[in-house]
């Protein structure tokens, strides 16, 4: 266990170093941060002075080593736009993205599990066929089209839901701004979480169905039928439990996709989370913020993967954790 965690830690370091180098390399191609922050009438001499002050005229290598040594001390640099430590800015936006992703995951679980199981148990049923067909359609419609469609229908035409932002939030425990506790916050959550969920839902419905089908064809389920166990027990206790293993693995892998999709969803609904923060940072060439975001996302991925492996090991003790590490 300890060895497993240590290996994971090592792996995390490798991943984060690679990300830090990559994010550093791409900064140049994003544009000139100084040019973004000054007005039109400022003279080239003044611009040069600012560049010098910001250390942007040093060699790339110098800049990187300075950056890396700061990061090792926990300093990700100051965001140009927010004028605060980049990490603080991101952590402030984390609750918004987390709540969005969490709601989407809840919707995905609540919808995909029953739908997937039903489609597997009654594959020939009309409803099951309809479910599968609509999941195929869902898979075929890009998420940005879904988002705009929802916005247009429910906000503009029907005026049922708010169109942008998080609405009223409440500060919990002094650090976490939550929208879960107010009616307004919840109503703002509906469309963004729905469109985020719709992006991943079809995949999970199909996954659960196919895993379930496979399990239902396995020997031990046949044995269970032969033993005369009740269908409910077979489906929900024996089959479902074994279906969950691969789904947790793939679910863990999908965390990355979820994070990427939050960028699109947050942009469409002006959700003040990390995703829209990232896109804004790219537009403003706020390089410290961009690097910090990529590092945080990298860390989230390493943590979620480790968690998935731990859960996996917990559910299925035959998996030796250590053999999983690099």
């Amino acid at each position: 266990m300890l060895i497993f965690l240590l290996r994971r830690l090592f792996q995390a370091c490798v991943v984060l170093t690679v990300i830090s180098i990559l994010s550093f390399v791409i900064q140049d191609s994003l544009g000139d941060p100084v040019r973004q922050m000054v007005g039109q009438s400022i003279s080239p001499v003044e611009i040069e002075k600012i560049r010098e002050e910001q250390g942007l005229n040093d060699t790339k290598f110098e800049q990187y080593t300075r950056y890396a040594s700061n990061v090792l001390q926990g300093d990700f640099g100051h965001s140009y736009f927010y004028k605060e430590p980049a990490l603080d800015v991101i952590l402030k936006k984390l609750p918004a993205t987390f709540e969005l992703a969490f709601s989407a995951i809840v919707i995905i679980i609540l919808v995909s599990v029953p739908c997937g199981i039903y489609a597997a148990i009654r594959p020939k049923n009309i409803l099951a066929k309809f479910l599968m067909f609509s999941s195929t359609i869902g898979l075929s419609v890009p998420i940005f089209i879904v988002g705009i469609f929802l916005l247009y229908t429910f906000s503009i035409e029907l005026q049922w839901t708010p169109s942008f932002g998080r609405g009223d939030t409440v500060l919990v425990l002094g650090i976490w701004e939550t929208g879960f506790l107010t009616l307004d916050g919840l109503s703002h959550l509906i469309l963004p979480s729905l469109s985020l969920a719709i992006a991943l839902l079809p995949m999970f419905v199909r996954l659960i169905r196919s895993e379930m089908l496979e399990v239902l064809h396995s020997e031990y389920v046949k044995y269970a039928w032969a033993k005369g166990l009740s269908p409910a027990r077979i489906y929900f206790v024996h089959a479902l439990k074994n279906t969950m293993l691969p789904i947790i693995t793939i679910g863990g892998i999908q965390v990355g996709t979820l994070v990427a999709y939050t960028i699109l969803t947050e942009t469409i609904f002006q959700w003040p989370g990390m995703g829209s923060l990232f896109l804004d940072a790219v537009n403003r060439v706020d390089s410290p913020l961009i690097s910090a975001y990529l590092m945080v996302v990298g860390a989230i991925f390493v943590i979620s993967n480790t968690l998935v492996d731990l859960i996996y090991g917990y559910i299925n003790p035959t998996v030796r954790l250590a053999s999983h590490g690099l």
Partner: protein
Amino acid sequence: MKVVARFIHLIGLFFCSANFAATLHMATDADPASLDPHEHLSQGTLQLSHLTFDPLLRWTQENTFEPRLATSWKSIDPLTTRFDLREDVYFHSGNPFSADDVIYTMQRLKSSVEFRALFDNIDRVEKLSDYRIDIITHKPTPLLLNLMAYLFPMDKAFYQGRDDIVKFGNSFASRNLSGTGPYIITNREPGTRIEFVRNANYWDTISKGNVDRIEFSTIKSDSTRLAALLSGDVDFIFPISPLDMPRVKRSPNIQLVTLPSTRILLLQLNQNRRTELKNTKVRQAINLAVNQEIIVKKILKGFGTAAAQLSADDFLGHLDSIRPQFELAKARQLMQEAGYEKGFKVSMMAPNNRYIHDEKIAQAITAMLAKINIKVDLKTLPKAQYFQEYDKRSADIMMLGWQSDTLDSNNLFEFIVACPDPITGYGVYNANGYCNPRLDSRIKSANRELNPEKRIRLLQQIESTIAQDAVVVPIAWEHLAWGAKENVNISSIVNSQGWPYLGDLVID
């Protein structure tokens, strides 16, 4: 008697505003990067300044000046102008406003990297009494009043000693604010929203403005912003994409207000990069082949004004005689005369998220130039990358939009047409490679000329030389568009500079 009448008036005002006190939810595409009014010269900063500070004087919709913190002004001699200041004005902090604050603010402006250039010509401010000052310039300055519209007195006692202007950094002034303006910031989440409440002690009691809370949100995406207005989540948005205007017009409870702006969109033909473009006939041919009218009609959906010169309609240099011309046959003939009837290939760069429909306009122009056999290799970039390339003059044709900070023609000439000079800052945006010393000397004398008649003639001469030589390809002046609910009376408070006077906004 007079006192009683004033008292009744005040009481009436009090009841009016108490009865109709309203909250305004508004959304724009960008929020100010800092609370420091001198850190970044941008529309966002100036919008904020008009909300939380007051200028000495400000533009009206008719392009005249109206007194704000200065009550009157007069010229004493060519170098001196005297301003009388308003009494009984208090900053948000409670400190009283006086001449010292103006002197302090002027010093700070002159040390600001961004504003310094504008105020270069001002020598000093002399205090005659607590409410009277003389502003003394180095040289005669015809545009002094235009500059004073940028002077928003700051609270000296509040800022002094901790007033560093720090770009990209965390400074006292970038997080704290004390002005005399109609609104006080109560809450700010950068990049997301700012909340304001009305300044209870605001000096302008004549203003009918009845908005006592403003919730200012930032919504980047055009369609989301419009959706927020259409769904009723916000009352007032800016800007609106020309494409969405038909939709706004169709909506029953939404009003659309548009005003021509003075920002000119133009193409610069780099003569240093290409010998073909050195030929005046070729440049004239390009100007004739570009059909400004149809760009305005089809791409800007009529929300723009086709341009054939740099100075917008209200500018002194504007010449009614210069009209956009579109004559393909003549353009082809000129190309033939220049010896390029077979055409040539040029590279062109344009931003894709800076000006209204910049990318679409650039694309349309490639098609128009193809008609005179000029094959354009177009590349469009996000603004962050574009201006890096612009500074390097990376392509033969570059797109540029320019708003004159002083609302005067000469600002355009100085930056875009004058010969590049890194010391004076002239010609910083001259990507034409055009350098005409005679024009330069005229531009310089227009900066000194105090006689309005002579100055107009000078500016118009410069404008017509630029048009004759076809130095640049002017395209259009963009229009600004605001959308609001019916009961929000925005039409009287917006202006072509793009900073609405929200202090005077009335919501029914």
